[in-house]
């Protein structure tokens, strides 16, 4: 309620400031032709900015420190002999009761006289402090408004000033992306380093057993955290996914960009891109209830023992997910190869497929490799499909027909619902995340570098 009033007042102040600046600058214009440097909107905006900054500053300060000030006041209203007898929890309860009395909602049961008095005092304090904040914000805002208004002259570079402020705001916005990266790196690094104070990094990176023990088992033993079983599972699933996605995706791109008539292309391309828009949880469910049992039965028919949740199940479905990614990137890249190369090959009598295989693909190879690397990094970082369909069995195995676990699955297992980050059980999630981040980052940097070089080559 109070914050709504304050927001309303701020908007009102803002409108008033804009109007003031606007009309003052309008009044400068006289028939005998004094040229005002900036248009009235800019003068209005400049005054509004001047007004808003101090008012927001005061409101912001109150939002930050208001609660602790209110609490301190409430505590000061409780008689000292009562406070002596209260521990931390009882004190908080008393403060809450006084707050409830002050708000007029009331409390259950007997109200002690000191509570009644403190409630009344708090009510007054809240009212006065609210008035004070509003008055201070409005007062400084209006002072700033008057100052800004007095600065308005025909020669004032209002537009330049407003544009400088806008530029700063834009710069701040693009800083968010940087901050995100910094935040990711910082949080992963600090928590991973804390993990390495529990577990030797060598045991983590070269250990072949993944067997974290949960802290609830009570023993001091934290379990073993060897990443190799997870890494092998991750790579196996990614390899199967690429084995599905690369042939289908690449051939789709080739057919659509070289053979298909325009009308077919216009229909088929969007349909395939639907695959890219489907949430991964849907793929995971599809893998779990349809693809897994199907592969299991198909395997039994040819005498193979394929587990319903296995690296194969997860990999195949992940491959389906990546098809549109590969096909649209390859399509772009094939279209960037200069027509002269293609026409030259036709001129020498090559068939269409010979042109594609011997001329187009070699020319487009760097770009296509870049696209594959991007797809690999996506496959490594994919989570929901493997959580549901890979079987969650972190054991070093060579067979794709058996359940595996991946880095992403283990992050989810170790961190779901646990946020105190005290022991290696949850901190290992960040060490795994760091590994994943570095792997995908390297793949992305190399891939983006290759794609960029390729583009420049033909531009």
């Amino acid at each position, binding site marked *: 309620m109070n914050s709504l009033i304050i927001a309303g007042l701020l908007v009102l102040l803002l409108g008033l400031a804009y109007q003031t600046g606007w009309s003052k600058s309008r009044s400068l214009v006289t028939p005998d032709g004094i040229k005002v440097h900036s248009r009235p909107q800019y003068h209005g905006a400049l005054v509004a900015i001047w007004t808003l900054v101090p008012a927001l500053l005061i409101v912001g300060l109150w939002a930050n420190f208001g609660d602790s000030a209110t609490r301190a006041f409430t505590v000061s209203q409780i008689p000292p002999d009562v406070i002596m007898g209260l521990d931390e929890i009882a004190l908080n309860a008393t403060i809450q009761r006084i707050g409830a009395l002050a708000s*007029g*909602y*009331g*409390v259950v049961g007997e109200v002690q006289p000191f509570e009644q008095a403190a409630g009344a005092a708090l009510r007054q304090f809240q009212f006065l402090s609210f008035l004070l904040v509003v008055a201070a914000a409005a007062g400084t805002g209006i002072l700033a408004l008057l100052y800004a208004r007095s600065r308005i002259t025909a020669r004032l570079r209002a537009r330049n000033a407003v*544009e400088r402020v806008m*530029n700063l705001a*834009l710069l701040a*916005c693009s800083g*968010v*992306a940087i901050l*995100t990266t910094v*935040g*990711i790196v910082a949080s*992963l690094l600090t*928590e991973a380093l804390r993990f390495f104070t529990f577990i030797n990094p060598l045991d983590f990176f070269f250990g072949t057993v993944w067997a974290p023990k949960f802290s609830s088992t009570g023993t001091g033993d934290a379990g073993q955290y060897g990443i190799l079983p997870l890494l092998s599972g991750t790579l196996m699933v990614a390899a199967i996914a690429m084995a599905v996605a690369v*042939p*289908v*995706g690449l*051939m*789709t791109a080739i*057919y*659509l960009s070289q*053979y298909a008539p325009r009308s077919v292309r216009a229909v088929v391309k969007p*349909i*395939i891109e639907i*695959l890219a*828009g*489907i*949430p*991964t*949880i*849907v793929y*995971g*469910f*599809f893998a779990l*209830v349809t693809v897994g049992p199907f592969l299991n039965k198909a395997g039994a028919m040819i005498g193979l023992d394929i587990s319903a949740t296995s690296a194969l199940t997860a990999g195949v479905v992940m491959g*389906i997910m990546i098809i*549109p990614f590969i096909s649209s990137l390859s399509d772009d890249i094939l279209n960037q190869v200069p027509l002269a190369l293609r026409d030259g090959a036709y001129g020498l009598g090559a*068939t269409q*497929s*010979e042109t*594609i295989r011997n001329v187009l693909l070699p020319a487009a190879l760097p770009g296509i490799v870049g696209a594959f690397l991007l797809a690999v990094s*996506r496959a*490594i*970082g994919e*989570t*929901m499909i493997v959580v*549901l369909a890979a079987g969650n069995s972190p054991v070093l195995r060579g067979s794709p027909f058996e359940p595996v676990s991946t880095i*992403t699955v283990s*992050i*989810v297992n170790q961190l*779901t*619902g646990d*946020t105190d*980050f005290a022991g290696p059980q949850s901190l290992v999630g*960040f060490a795994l995340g760091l590994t994943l*981040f570095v792997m995908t*980052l390297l793949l*992305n940097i190399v891939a*983006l570098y290759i794609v960029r070089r390729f583009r420049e080559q033909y531009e």
Partner: protein
Amino acid sequence: MTNISTPTGRQASIERTRRVRDGLRRRHLHEALFKGFGLAAIIAALGFVAILFTDVLIKGIPAFTQANLHLEATFDPAIIDVGPAPVRTAGQSDADFRAASLGWQRDVALLNWNKVVEASLRAAAPAGFEIDSRQILTVAETNARHVLREMFVNDPSLLGQTIKVDLLASANADNWVKGNIDRELGDAQQQLSAPARALIDIFEENGTISMGFAWSIFTNVDSRAAPASAGLAGAFMGSLFMMVIVILLAVPIGVASAIYLEEFAPKSRLTDLIEVNINNLAAVPSIVFGLLGAAVFINYFKLPLSAPLAGGLVLTLMTLPTIIIATRGALQGVSPALRQAALGMGASKTQMVFHHVLPVTFPSILTATIIGVAQALGETAPLLLIGMNAFVASIPATPLDQATALPVQIYLWQANENRNFFEARTSAAILVLLGFMILLNAIAILLRTRLERRA
């Protein structure tokens, strides 16, 4: 000479023609094969789309109908033995009145409402039908007693009256009516006892049980004890809050930083670094954003666990690169003539960007925004790490309340032990999620074509 050489020359030429023909045949075969591979790849890709959708549709559509019980419930004073609801007296504080009514509600809740449910079920059964009370209660969903209790709490004057109520049949009864359970199985393997199964068949015949549209999917919150009444309302509100946060934060910040990088930033090593950084950020696995959220938003800033606010912020950071990259692409595509014309008329650079360039790119920015939002709507993994997989049995009222999201609800439901019932309901939830996706994309396409026509 010529006499001798001509036949051999002819022979050689025949030989050559044959070789060329052979070669051509081989080459054309390769051509056809290659083209066939391409066609096969496309058919495979389209087939995947088709299989995926038909699979989800076949599994999900039956879950949109549900068995309902039409009963006559009697609020028997003998069972509902409770004092009158407290009335507010003058001078009573809000807190005291609330405490009194909560106390009364607790008394009401302590009554055995299952007896009311049982009595109404027995009233609908044929006279003399033998079934014990535990068995007969398996016909109605376990939330039936809560539904009746809520009716009574909201209207205490119902005491002693008999009214018509529609209750949900239990998940097992629903499956039995739909024929998902093999009727030939022996008693030991059946979830429902023999009398209960017989009673359901009787109910189906005399119209006490009928199939109706499963509104509970849309109006109810998640429920573990009463699977047939589990719905998506809570998850939907959670997703809605998060989408609003993403739109309010990601779009302005993303567009602003794209404008800065594309139009104002000096070409320097720093801006190069920012560009590489943003491209990389777009390819960072989503789960890493979840780690960021857990460490920074939850652990450092102490935002509440499982709150749509934290989820919305994580999804915002995840969506930002998409919007930035798409907006930059749109800005790059604006013709230089427009810029030069604006500058030539004396506009400042800022005016040129905001008055002339930006409006032209509006359709593309809108499309990028919707695609980014759709991507955020379907994201699950990062939300698991900030506690949004908690079981929440209420609709969140603010972005600071505990909530879950549509994809996370799918994740929770697929893990439910009552596989028989929840597989269908999970598919139904997937259909709802996909429906939203299609809606968003359709809006994007529609708006874009309309705006582009006008531009």
